């Protein structure tokens, strides 16, 4: 008796093909190949493509900066920027992802890239501080850091390996609070989203993130001024268009670039 062998094989093959989607993956720019010729001599137009990997907390800032940069240098294209937890991005860069510029949310993560021989001299371009956020209306009744120790409340933090996670835990241990964490997220935007949709009672994000959406409220966070994240920026040695990458770095560090970030709540480096 044939148990439908061909159909089972076909189904099995199709299922195996489709089952390859178990692992999550972050968006990578597939090719940052050098643009058609690079302008390098002084006085000629800069051209090429720039691929930027930036910490998740830099999203609105860097999107604006990329637009302004492209207006200033019409022959340079800034490819859609990859935003994620800095540690995730650093891992991708070290494993060979084709990035030209890396902006990290803390110096330790940038140091990993420097140690791998991929970046020479990172420069600080901004600072940021943490704040407790709650969904609009504060349904969980969270009034400060001490409430993050409550196992009854749903608390979401960044994973420890991510800059905001390391800073969160440093802040919590500085004030002597042992958090009861319900989920560790890979980047700060994921924490913000969980709080904004009301799925969590509270989370720790940067003050700049708290300002991006009306769905969360920032709660006065004692001791947050003591924990400062310093953001370094570097053009990578593997940049396809080194001049364009260096120009982007210079633009972020310029007064115009700093103004964009300051407007969003970032501190001076």
């Amino acid at each position: 008796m044939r148990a439908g062998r061909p159909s089972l094989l076909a189904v099995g093959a199709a299922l195996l093909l489709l089952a390859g989607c178990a692992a999550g993956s972050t968006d990578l720019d597939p090719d940052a190949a050098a643009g058609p010729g690079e302008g390098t001599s002084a006085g000629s137009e800069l051209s090429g493509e720039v691929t930027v990997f930036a910490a998740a907390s830099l999203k609105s800032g860097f999107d604006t900066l990329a637009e302004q940069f492209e207006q200033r240098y019409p022959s340079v294209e800034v490819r859609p920027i990859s935003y994620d937890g800095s540690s995730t991005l650093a891992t991708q860069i070290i494993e060979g992802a084709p990035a030209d510029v890396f902006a990290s949310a803390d110096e330790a993560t940038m140091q990993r890239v420097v140690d791998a021989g991929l970046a020479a001299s990172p420069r600080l371009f901004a600072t940021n501080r943490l704040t407790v956020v709650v969904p609009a209306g504060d349904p969980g009744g969270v009034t400060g850091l001490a409430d993050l120790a409550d196992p009854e409340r749903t608390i979401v933090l960044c994973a420890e390996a991510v800059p905001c996670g390391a800073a969160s835990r440093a802040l919590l241990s500085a004030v002597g609070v042992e958090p009861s964490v319900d989920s560790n997220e890979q980047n700060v935007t994921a924490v913000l989203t969980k709080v904004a949709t009301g799925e969590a009672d509270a989370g720790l994000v940067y003050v700049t993130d708290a300002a991006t959406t009306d769905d969360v409220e920032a709660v006065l966070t004692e001791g947050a001024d003591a924990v400062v994240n310093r953001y370094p920026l570097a053009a990578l040695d593997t940049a396809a268009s080194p001049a364009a990458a260096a120009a982007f770095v210079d633009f972020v560090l310029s007064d115009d670039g700093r103004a964009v970030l300051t407007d969003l709540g970032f501190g001076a480096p």
Partner: protein
Amino acid sequence: MVPAAVGLALLVVPLTALVARVDPTTLWRDVTSAGAVSALVLSVQTALAATAACILLGVPLALTIARSAARTAAVLRAVVTVPLVLPPMVGGVALLFLFGRNGWLGVALEGVGIRIPFTAVAVVLAQTFVALPFLVLALEGALRGAGVRYEQAAAALGAGRWRILWRVTLPLAAPGLVAGVVLCFARALGEFGATALFAGNAPGTTQTMPLAIYTAFNGAGVSQGTAVALSLLLLVTAVAVLLLVRGWRPGTSR
């Protein structure tokens, strides 16, 4: 011949690259660390629970589809296939919006004091969501192929419905059922996207092996060695499961 070799290489060579990166000096310590063991135990427990749920729900569903008229069956089959083609993370978001604080079922359950997101129950739910189609489709194919002649013969000889199910229908479809169960378990064990979004990532409660590997891999230094060790552990577990279930090859003749 060459395409076959390339296909096989595509499946095997990346795994050898993974094994090559294992650091033998720290391997045992990484693999037996508290975090690794708890992640593995949680993964196996939830995958088993999800497989049980899939059997309880999937067998009746497969029977329904297999015995339906062609058009109804086609529609049902398409619906069941949706979680397969849906990116798992989208499934996780959907589950969160259904069972979360502001979702229909979430609000109803909260009224009775039950919270599902960020618990182990959420892990099982997410795994069931993504793994159920495997069981249903594999079993349904086998059931349809088996046909109804033997069931009709058994009924004519006086067997009751349950007896027909246990003694005739399921044994006839056994290869498809076993294949479906194994695929279902393997898929549940490896589920990442839906669990990450719906159940969260808390060591000990909801951090399954895939989540532990992803978290460790994105950390610095020592953590990456741990990620490789954990990956190897999961790989060995998966191979062990496959070997334990003998005769799972589809279409094993009786």
